[in-house]
């Protein structure tokens, strides 16, 4: 190994350990690590300005295919499309939240099922998955878990079973589309896959997994929820969904913007709009909506809602992964997996999906996916019989579904368990894993079998 390779690996591992230890905010960790990669690996060791420029990848933003039209080849370095898209979606989601859309939706569903807990479990699981297909799972769980706790207090049931189901379904829904989970956005934009590519591949498999998951959680929790319903006070006063709407004009306008953006995403392969452009449109329309329908100060408030820390985290992360890429470390990993599988595609799929799932259950799946994208690209290039898209779907499903395995596997899990804890319902590792770990193994297995049957059968 060369000095550049050793240093790139050391920086990468140190970054991972620092992220796990959570002593320093993760965006600082990745940005400092990225700075070290540029200064030491690219500058001192490789003396390569080209490697720096490739990794910073700024040129790409000023090209037409970045915004519109058919882009060719694959991206390396900082994935600006991912960052711009996520920023745009953050603004749109902030607008929807401020207008009361999510809270209204949750309460409306609860009313429609007459506040019966078992149908509520199924409906909240379903809505969690559906919303997570288009907006980030943190927001979905933030609203769903909060409403669940509120309803649990009124309807006298333990909210934990429902929150666990919502978390699981949010991660499952996120795996169905290109914009559902950050790893999918990274995979999709890096390999130039479309929203529809994801929907018709990971989406179809996630749909099958969802059926299994809902039946599983129904069987786990039905007795407990029914018993609590029997103890409910007949004079219970139920919350009114209409009370969730803070501004009717903004409420309608934001829903229209959301549906329009969903249409743009579904058709972006046909229209030629890139996800970066869709992100910008989402942000622009949301801010415009706020200016037209809401009081002064709402639009700046929405822009302030952008999670800059996450965006900076991405920037640093892509540079560090770029360091591994430019020093050919990822090629070596690809070749290692290739050797381990002995060229057997079945085994290769099994390795990618299970390693991704197990790793994502314990570590942040975003850096893992960002690292694995170049690896699967190299694997597909080295083996003529292996389709890159097949590995992309396998990786996406592995990292997205694996995150369900533990309370720290995905952002939605952390937010959901935290909201429960803040309201006095503490979810221990034991309780979480008792229900979600077997379900994770089940859906990962189902996904692997679906991949075998559909692409290798």
């Amino acid at each position, binding site marked *: 190994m060369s000095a550049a390779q050793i240093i790139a690996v050391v920086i990468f591992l140190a970054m991972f350990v620092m992220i796990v230890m959570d002593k320093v905010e993760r965006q600082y960790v990745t940005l400092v690590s990225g700075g070290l990669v540029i200064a030491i690996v690219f500058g001192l060791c490789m003396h390569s300005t080209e490697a720096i420029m490739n990794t910073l990848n700024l040129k790409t933003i000023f090209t037409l295919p970045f915004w519109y039209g058919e882009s060719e080849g694959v991206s390396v370095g900082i994935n600006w499309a991912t960052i711009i898209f996520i920023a745009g979606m953050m603004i749109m989601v902030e607008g929807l939240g401020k207008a009361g859309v999510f809270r209204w939706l949750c309460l409306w569903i609860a009313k429609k099922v007459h506040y019966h807990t078992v149908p509520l479990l199924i409906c909240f699981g379903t809505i969690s998955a559906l919303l997570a297909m288009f907006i980030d799972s*943190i927001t979905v769980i933030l609203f769903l878990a909060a409403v669940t706790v509120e309803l649990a207090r009124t309807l006298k049931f333990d909210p934990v079973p429902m929150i666990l189901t919502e978390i699981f379904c949010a991660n499952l829904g996120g795996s169905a589309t290109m914009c559902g989970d950050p790893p999918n956005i990274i995979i999709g934009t890096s390999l130039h896959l479309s929203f529809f590519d994801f929907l018709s591949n990971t989406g179809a498999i996630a749909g099958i997994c969802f059926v299994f998951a809902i039946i599983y959680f129904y069987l786990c929790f039905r007795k407990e929820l029914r018993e609590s319903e029997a103890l409910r006070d007949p004079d219970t006063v139920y919350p009114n969904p209409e009370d969730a709407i803070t501004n009717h004009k903004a409420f309608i306008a934001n829903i229209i913007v959301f549906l329009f953006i969903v249409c743009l995403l579904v058709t972006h392969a046909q229209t030629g709009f890139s996800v970066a452009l869709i992100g910008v449109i989402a942000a622009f329309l949301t801010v415009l909506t706020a200016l037209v329908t809401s009081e002064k100060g709402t639009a700046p408030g929405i822009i302030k809602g952008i999670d800059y820390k996450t965006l900076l985290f991405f920037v640093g992360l892509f540079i560090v992964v770029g360091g591994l890429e430019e020093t050919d470390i990822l090629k070596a990993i690809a070749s290692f997996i290739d050797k381990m599988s002995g060229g057997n595609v079945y085994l290769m799929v099994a390795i990618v999906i299970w390693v991704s799932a197990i790793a994502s259950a314990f570590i942040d799946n975003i850096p893992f996916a960002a690292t694995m994208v170049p690896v699967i690209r190299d694997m597909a290039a080295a083996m003529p019989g292996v389709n890159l898209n097949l590995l992309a779907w396998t990786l996406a499903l592995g990292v997205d579904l694996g995150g369900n395995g533990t309370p720290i596997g995905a952002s939605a899990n952390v937010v959901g368990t935290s909201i429960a804890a803040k309201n006095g319902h*503490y979810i221990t590792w034991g309780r979480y894993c008792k229900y979600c770990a077997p379900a994770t193994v089940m859906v990962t297995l189902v996904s692997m079998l679906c991949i075998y049957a559909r692409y290798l059968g």
Partner: protein
Amino acid sequence: MDRQIIISIGREYGSGGHEIARRLSQKLGMPLLDSTLFQAAAADSPELKKYDEKVKNVWFSRSVSGYSNSIEENIAQKEFDFIQEKAAAGESFVVVGRCSDFILRDNPNLVSCFITSETAAKLERIETYYGVEKGKAEAAMHRKDKARAEYHDQHCKTSWGKARSYDLTIDSSRFGIDGTVELIFSAIAFAK
């Protein structure tokens, strides 16, 4: 006294810090915020007793946008909020540990104290008052103090037990429990 007074007592295990806090609260006629009160406030949460003033395990915890899955962290935050709400409401009280020296540092009515003691005196107290066997007292003392230091430093920008982190640092084996109570009581009148 007319004005708000908040006394924060940090303590080494076996130093008599809790007893000093209890006597101060009685002397001043102020409520004592300690584990008994926090546990009573969350009677329906048996987890509170288990995770109260405990350090989070960094390998099994993760934070996202200010949310954490760690029960230890969530319970700590709840207690911090509880203490801060009482302080903001203008209430006077004596609070034992729970990073109160740091989380209330901007409150001008706070007098933060740290109670230390000679090892021999601490061991005697641990054996007499907590009923720990003679051979196990020293290990228990080190374990408890290490945990308290980690808990404090995980949540605060100041260091547990360092004189600079507190208004007063007192050796209770030198002044005795009553003497320490009197020292803190006298100091309150001079606090600006």
